[in-house]
């Protein structure tokens, strides 16, 4: 068997890892359960912090795979059998495929906003998620309320499904803060007459140019920021929404009527990631994301020789970090296979 690697998952992490592995001379097979590659990012119109089109990054990682990577979409992994010289991956309705090494890049899922029932997602017509808002931008549609009116006021709710023990997710999803600021700007850009108010607990502008984007949202776009976690959302007969929070900086309960609510949904470990992890015997952390061999120095390897991780299987990550991580994973795979061949 030559140095063949199977990458499971064709999002940004999997595509980047596959491209990098091919560049390093590996024979690569990329498996994707969806009808096409691109993961979550293919559904994202513009990317923080510069608001460049997501398509540009998608095109880049797509091209990085070149023609050397064999891609198979619409495939379901049924089981993975480990042998002395590698892995045999059993596929649904298809012959098994074999490789010396596996890269798990099955990513994450978005938090199901129905679980925060008090926010009214799926109950009230004008409560949408950040992913749905992005989809509206992507399709170039005009942002309207459910009954077609131009909204005069929109609220953006941070930390939906993140930092919330009540839904079992203690962790911070990292990218929602800056996504919320980006989307607030984009709403103001599309509808200059629409007021935008963000409800947050902390604004975690941790990376380069994030704080600058927050600054721009205040200075140029006049986005309002209120420090308080949304307690509940209720609907008026005219389908507008009443939000209740504490304005923690004045120390008083606050209510605000808006036409639409955007819920910034966080990352959750994917069901597919859990299923694949079980097949190869990988452990998850308390947060449900997969554990690497060592969080600092072996973060791309696992405790199972020959199995490697890339991207958001290890927890919430932005695109920059995911790409860097996937490239590092490719290098680790190469090192592993070289050491195997030397034996």
């Amino acid at each position: 068997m030559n140095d063949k690697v199977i990458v499971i998952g064709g999002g940004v992490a999997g595509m980047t890892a596959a491209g990098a592995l091919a560049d390093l001379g590996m024979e690569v097979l990329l498996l994707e359960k969806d009808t096409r590659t691109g993961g979550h990012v293919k559904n994202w119109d513009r990317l923080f912090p510069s608001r460049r089109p997501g398509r540009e990054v998608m095109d880049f990682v797509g091209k990085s795979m070149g023609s050397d990577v064999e891609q198979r979409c619409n495939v379901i992994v049924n089981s993975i059998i480990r042998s002395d010289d590698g892995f045999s991956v059993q596929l649904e309705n298809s012959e098994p495929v074999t490789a010396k090494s596996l890269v798990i890049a099955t990513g994450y899922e978005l938090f199901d906003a129905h679980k925060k029932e008090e926010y009214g997602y799926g109950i009230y017509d004008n409560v949408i998620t950040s992913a749905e808002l992005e989809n509206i931008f992507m399709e170039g549609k005009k942002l309207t309320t459910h009954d077609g009116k131009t909204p005069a006021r929109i609220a953006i709710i941070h930390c939906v499904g993140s930092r919330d023990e009540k839904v079992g997710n203690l962790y911070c999803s990292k990218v929602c803060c800056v996504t919320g600021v980006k989307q607030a700007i984009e709403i103001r850009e599309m509808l200059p007459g629409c007021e935008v108010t963000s409800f947050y607990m902390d604004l975690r502008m941790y990376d380069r140019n994030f704080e600058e984007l927050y600054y721009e949202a205040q200075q140029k776009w006049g986005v309002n920021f209120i420090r308080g976690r949304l307690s509940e959302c209720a609907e008026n007969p005219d389908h507008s929404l009443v939000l209740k929070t504490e304005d923690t900086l004045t120390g008083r309960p606050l209510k605000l009527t808006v036409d639409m609510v955007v819920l910034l949904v966080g990352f959750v470990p994917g069901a597919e990631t859990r299923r694949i992890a079980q097949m190869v015997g990988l452990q998850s952390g308390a947060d449900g994301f997969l554990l690497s061999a060592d969080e600092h120095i072996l973060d791309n390897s696992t405790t199972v020789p020959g199995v490697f991780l890339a991207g958001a299987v290890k927890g919430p990550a932005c695109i920059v970090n995911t790409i860097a991580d996937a490239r590092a994973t490719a290098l680790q795979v190469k090192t592993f296979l070289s050491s195997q061949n030397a034996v």
Partner: protein
Amino acid sequence: MINFGYKIMRDESIDLDRNDMRIAEYLKLHEPSIKLCIGCGSCTATCSTGHFTDFNIRQVHTFIRRGEIKRVKKEIQRCMFCGKCQLVCPRGVNLRNVILTINRAIEQIG
């Protein structure tokens, strides 16, 4: 001597070196979940009493943690124990027991 009206003003800043931390210490010992508070204000937002009076449970707790306990004894009596705060707390703080524990601390300290 001419009285120009000058006087010595009392320092109104929170003095963490001198403040009375006894309620805070008692509370952290007997209801440790309070240590998880991140001050998000969900409790106050949903508080039945807080909507009709200036009672603010997040703020009362913050004052306790800073040792500013002068008004706590009177303030804490206003809670109606409906428990809505506990339902919305994203950190799972046992708020009803927080109130009971603050009352017990006040009893002991006098």
